[in-house]
């Protein structure tokens, strides 16, 4: 099974711009991307719909990490997923160029909260993305108790087509 994540260039640009905004104490910003899902045979395609930033007041002041969400941020994202019936992808950026990778801290934190989205939207896989200034990569959970798998490729559609990862 191959897993592809698709997003429009306009939405990705808006996300990158939002994630670059400074925060009062957090070193980086985070947000959530909602997505619809489609299958092509055994393969899966996640199709980005919209983005919501984590509100300023929903960050925890933890100088040991770039950014840490509070419970309210996760509650709001869960509520969005429940009400709209979307798959949900946590997103943040590492900046720089080239295909980024999750840090061990990212992987540990993702594992803590991403599976919770299955409680409210069990029909969809959920996951996390990390961006650079020029590329993206991600991981996805296909079930609450399953281990995450890597998203095989991320594709940007719009004025400038781009794709990263295995194809």
């Amino acid at each position, binding site marked *: 099974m191959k897993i592809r994540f698709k997003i429009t260039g306009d939405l990705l640009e808006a996300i990158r711009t939002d994630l670059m905004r400074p925060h009062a104490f957090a070193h980086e910003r985070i947000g959530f991307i909602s997505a619809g899902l489609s299958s092509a045979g055994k393969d899966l*395609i996640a199709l980005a719909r919209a983005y919501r930033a984590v509100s300023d007041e929903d960050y925890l002041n933890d100088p040991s990490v770039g950014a840490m969400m509070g419970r309210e941020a996760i509650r709001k994202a869960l509520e969005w997923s429940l009400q709209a019936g*979307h798959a949900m992808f946590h997103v943040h950026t590492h900046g720089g160029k080239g295909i980024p990778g999750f840090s061990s801290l990212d992987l540990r934190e993702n594992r803590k909260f991403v599976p919770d989205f299955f409680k409210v939207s*069990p029909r969809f896989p959920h996951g996390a993305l990390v961006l650079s200034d020029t590329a993206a990569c991600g991981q996805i959970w296909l079930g609450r108790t399953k281990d995450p798998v890597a998203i095989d490729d991320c594709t940007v559609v719009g004025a400038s087509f781009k794709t990263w990862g295995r194809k």
Partner: protein
Amino acid sequence: MKRLDRQSFLGPDSEKTLQGLTIGIVGLGGGGAQYAQQAAHIGIGGYMLVDFDRIDLTNTNRLVGGTLLDVLRRRHKTAIAARTIRSLNPSARIVEIRKSWHDAVEALKRCDVILGAVDSFREREQLERFARRNLIPYIDVGMDVHETQDGHLVSGQVILSSPGHPCLRCYGLITDENLAGEARKYGAAGGRPQVVWPNAVLASSAIGMLMQTVTPWHRRSVAFAYLVYDGNKGTVMPSPRAAALANRPCPHHPADETGDPLFDIRGHLAVPSPTPRAWPRWLGWIAMLFGR
């Protein structure tokens, strides 16, 4: 010397990008055959060719690559396009789907871009809706011949419809009126008038749009475009509607419509993988004999 050396201005990675690209071509008649030919020339690597029809004698005035022998053999239009592509790119990844595109959606979902060369407004609207739902840019081409007092007017259009940007309805190409009037013939000069040179102009413009999207050679690449062809004047001009609609979101295809509304990962994972066919027992004995 490499085959694509003369288009190196498209960028150092353009050959790899084009080879990795998969396009869907829906309709392999006069317009679609031109798409296939040009896409093969520029080095696109993957093709989903969709058309249920076979070539007939009346197609040979415009279907590039089609021959009288193909007519005699009643070849499928997809087979003719595949032959054209392979003659330029023997390693092309080609899937021929000799069905209506409605029966080819699983394959079309894997496409990076869909090029449509379908006749009816209904088909156009449905194909665009499918493409939007799957975040696939859709390039639509149509030509028409109208009877006028001076003779005939040959006209047409090429539209690049990208998710989030103006669609065929925004541009006024699809309206409730023309959908309702679909029963009327498309064109007014007899049974579906079609000729090769407008098809070539329109298909070339469409391939130009595709190339601007995937291997932009200048900084002003666009996500949407509407070009109007006037075959009597010999012009291809941007439609004023496109400029008027710039920066306006499309109200007809909201972003939250992407994906399959009935998708359920539990059902998707529950579908068993096809069981590999067991070898006949005698083949196993032979394998054992040779120590494999």
